[in-house]
Structure formats: C-alpha cells, structure tokens
C-alpha cells in the first residue's frame, strides 16, 4: 500500500470512529438493546470478536477503566489508536514525512512472524469466547 492511500484510509476510519464514539457518548446506554451496527450480530445474535469496543471506549472516556476492561479489553487498543494516530498523522502530513508509513510496514511484518501471530490469534479467540459468554 502506498503512503497517501494509507493516510487517506486512516483519516476516513478515524473520522468515522470519532463520529461514532461522540454519538455514542452523547446518547444513553439503553440504546444498545435496540441498536447495533454489526451485521453479524443482527443475523446470528452472536457477538463478534470486536463487540463491545464502542461501550469500552465510552467507558474509558468517562474514566471507568475497570468497566472498560470487563466489557472488552480491545477497547484500550482502539482508544490508544484514536488518541495517537491523529497526532501522528498530523505530524507526518505537516512535516511531509513518512514515519507512520514506515512503522506501519514494520508492524505488518512483525505480525506476520508465526510466533507473534499465533498467540495473538489465540488471544482474540479467547476474548471472543468471553464476549459470547458475557452475551454482549
């Protein structure tokens, strides 16, 4: 993937994430009973691996870190990305550098190492099992 394409995708995803998170923050919790953007959950009724990340991020934004972990620990990764990446993007775009792009490529290669990928896949699967058990 080229640098500009990556940055464009990141911008769109970050904008959507912030829009979605701020909409979730300003609305009450009970909407989760009747609205979810996840097609998979609509169809099967089973929560998917990333289910609850929005609730987790909302809890982090409100300072309820323990609640956030209990809902979905992946929320912390999402929150970290949402805080760090806009600043990093801004840094790269204004100074016309490609540090984010280089680190992204390094990170991709790091994830392809077998001994990194397998534990991570297992962690995601365990977390998914926990999601189903909690019935998010």
């Amino acid at each position, binding site marked *: 993937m080229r640098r500009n394409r*990556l940055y464009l995708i990141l911008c769109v995803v970050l904008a959507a994430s912030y829009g979605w998170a701020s909409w979730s923050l300003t609305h009450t919790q009970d909407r989760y009973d009747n609205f979810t953007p996840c097609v998979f959950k609509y169809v099967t009724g089973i929560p998917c691996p990333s289910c609850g990340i929005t609730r987790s991020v909302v809890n982090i934004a409100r300072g309820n870190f323990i609640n956030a972990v209990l809902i979905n620990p992946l929320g912390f*990764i999402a929150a970290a990305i949402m805080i760090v990446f806009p600043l990093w993007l801004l840094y790269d775009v204004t100074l016309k550098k490609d540090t984010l792009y280089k680190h992204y490529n390094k990170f991709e290669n790091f994830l392809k190492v077998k001994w990194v990928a397998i534990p991570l896949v297992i962690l995601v699967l365990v977390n998914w099992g926990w999601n189903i058990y909690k019935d998010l």
Partner: protein
Amino acid sequence: MDLEKSFNPKSNDSLKADLYLMTNAKYFQGHHINYIRERLLSIDDSKWPLIFAAEFKDPSNIQLVSLFAGAWGIDRFMIGDTGVGVGKLLTCGGFGIWTIIDWFAIQDATKQKNMEKLQQFI
C-alpha cells in the same frame, strides 16, 4: 525441440513465458499481463525455478473468504494486508461498510498483492 532451440534460443523463452501466463494469468490484473510477459522474456534463465515455485493467492478463494469472514478482516490477513486486517477486526469490519466494499475490492487487492510478490523475481 533441441534442434529448434539451437536455431533460435529465444523461442524456448517465449514458450516458457506463454506457458507460465496460461496457467497463472488468473492471479494477475489484465493490464499487467503484457508487462509480465515482457519481463519474463527478458529475465535470466536462473530465475525461472524461483518464479515457477512462487505461490499466489487465488482471487476466487479470497472472494469466498471475504463473503463469509470479511467482517473480521480474515480476507485481508490472508492476502498479507495485516494492518488493514487488524483495522477491520477492531472496527467490526469497518461498521459493516468496509466489509461490503471489500466484497467488491478484494479480488483486485489480491491480484495486486500477487503482482507485488512476482515483482520481487522479475
């Protein structure tokens, strides 16, 4: 065959290149085929074993994976777009929108990744 080769060493190369493209054309985008053929005709003979050994992802298989498991980014992980895969996984397939975009875009993305792989050899 030997006789022909001794007269025209180039013909063997073009035979190899055409054979290669006949079996592997489905892995690449149409507008790359001509370029690949030209490159194959000009490469050194020692590179052929590497090129024949290179394995590519079948766009139709990835399309199926995308239809059924695209919401978790499995399609992107399979073609080696790990970063995008993580993004899709964390956002539940980009709120479902990205999943649907990828149903239509994943074949081209796969072919592009195959081309990047082939380009290491030619």
